[in-house]
């Protein structure tokens, strides 16, 4: 590779600059490699390795086993899985229809770009500010409570709805899950060729035939992959939950948060094991997303 660049350089410079060119190039990659190693690979790898270490340096699977022994930790994982699953499926469901509406729904083009821009913003709006936005909306003295009371005479708080609960957190999560689905899925919808629908029509098929035999089968990997991505996204999120429910809703990231702050579990190894568990879950689901996406791209070419 390096030689091709050399031969195109003017002959007079070939000698000195030629050698300089090679070493400069390799040196050019060094900062990135160094950064990635020092600030991404090693810190994370360190945690994962320590998950298998005893306090005095031996190798053990005990930390991991501890996860399954502690009821509260298992419940945390289960809670995280639940919230991630529900918000992923909900996000995928609503996101699908919004994506459909703006691509194939026959709407004017400005609607599509406005919604895509907003989706870009909203998917980044996770975290602390989002929590406060929803407290203002669905909290005990939020806007919805007052509108229901003053305009409809309904006592919002008597319905038993509690924003600081599983349901509440899920509703809040949807605020960035749905836009993420829209962003990720719109390209898949745009990949549906118009000619497929027309080909179905000339072969005698109705709209329903098209969706049943062609569109949905072609879209299926993207739908599944996007749902997996949403799952991974929700599973790793902590700031929103922390700002909204504090430590009361013990999802795994919150557990980990407390553990990092101060060793509340009294067992550093357990902390590392929990981190390992999180990484495995998010890697598998994110990996699934990437795999499915490359599948569908190969098909549709």
């Amino acid at each position, binding site marked *: 590779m390096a030689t091709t660049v050399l031969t195109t350089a003017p002959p007079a410079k070939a000698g000195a600059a030629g050698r300089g060119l090679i070493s400069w190039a390799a040196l050019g990659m060094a900062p*990135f490699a160094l950064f990635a190693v020092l600030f991404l690979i090693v810190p994370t790898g360190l945690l994962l390795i320590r998950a298998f270490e005893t306090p005095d340096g031996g190798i053990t699977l005990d930390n991991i086993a501890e996860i399954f022994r502690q009821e509260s930790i298992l419940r945390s994982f289960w809670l995280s899985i639940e919230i991630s699953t529900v918000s992923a499926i909900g996000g995928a469901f609503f996101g699908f229809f919004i994506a459909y509406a703006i691509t194939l729904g*026959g*709407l004017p083009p400005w609607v599509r770009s406005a919604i895509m821009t907003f989706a870009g913003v909203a998917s980044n709006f996770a975290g602390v500010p989002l929590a406060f936005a929803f407290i203002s909306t669905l909290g005990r003295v939020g806007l919805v409570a007052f509108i229901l009371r003053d305009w409809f005479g309904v006592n919002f708080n008597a319905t038993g709805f509690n924003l600081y609960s599983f349901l509440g957190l899920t509703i809040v999560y949807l605020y960035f899950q749905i836009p993420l689905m829209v962003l990720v899925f719109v390209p898949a919808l745009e990949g549906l060729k118009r000619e497929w629908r027309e080909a179905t029509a000339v072969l005698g098929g109705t709209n329903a035939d098209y969706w049943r035999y062609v569109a949905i089968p072609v879209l299926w990997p993207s739908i599944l992959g996007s749902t997996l991505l949403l799952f991974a996204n929700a599973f790793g999120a902590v700031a929103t939950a922390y700002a909204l429910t504090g430590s009361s809703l013990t999802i795994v990231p919150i557990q980990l948060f407390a553990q990092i702050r101060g060793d509340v579990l009294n067992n550093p190894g357990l902390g590392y094991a929990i981190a390992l568990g999180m990484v495995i879950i998010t890697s598998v689901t994110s990996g699934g997303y990437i795999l499915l996406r490359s599948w569908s791209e190969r098909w549709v070419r």
Partner: protein
Amino acid sequence: MKTKSLFAWVIVTLAALYFVVPLLATLEYAMRQLATGETPGWFFLGKAHSFDAFVSSIVSPRFQVDFLRSMVLAVAAIVLGVLLVVPTAYLIRLKFPGWRSPVEFITLLPLVIPAIIIVFGYSRMYLATPWSPFNKSPFATDVLLTFGYVTLALPYMYRSVDTGMRSIDVKTLTEAGQSLGASGSRILFNIILPNVRSAVLSGAFLTFAIVIGEFTFASLLARPVFGTYLQEIGANQPYEPSALALIAFFITWACMGLIQIVGRSRGAAPAR
């Protein structure tokens, strides 16, 4: 055709409601704070409102310090990110196409590995150990925090710059520069960089948006930034958090809008 459009409009309207109402609610909530003795702004839902929460939150000295720190960190993360990513993407396109897959994999890692895990690693490796330079002073920890932000933004910055480089013929531009006698770094900064300007700016605005609202890293590295300040006053103050949340939202919106604008204008300098 018509029924399909109607269905689509209904969906979009309902979606707009779900997404806009919380923003309106935040605005309304934030406006409930009244400075003592001040006449209310206008009446809605029978209650008095004013912009006082916005004013008082911005005027607070602690807010200004923390927000400024966020801004500085964001700029530092952008600069560092560009310095890291642009030469790397360039070299991969030009000389080391075989490195493409591993590098892309690395840039995807911050998306796969949650932020809390990464900062957990930082915490144990760079804060808890005696030989690390990063726990020697608050400034040193700020540096570590910047590195963390660069890592968080890496996927977006790399993808943006890489896409920009794909659309210009890097190889030919380089060869043209070499045949005119330019050295490597000169080619990179005077020829390549100006042509991927819009891609770099897109990555920069995304980084800015990520850093401004970020909470997890800053909180666990114990550095006071906008995100941590927001969470703190959320526990103490009733209305200011909502005002600040809205401000944060609009900053993010502005960043996204700027990305659209620079994305539309071509990165290359026009011929004169």
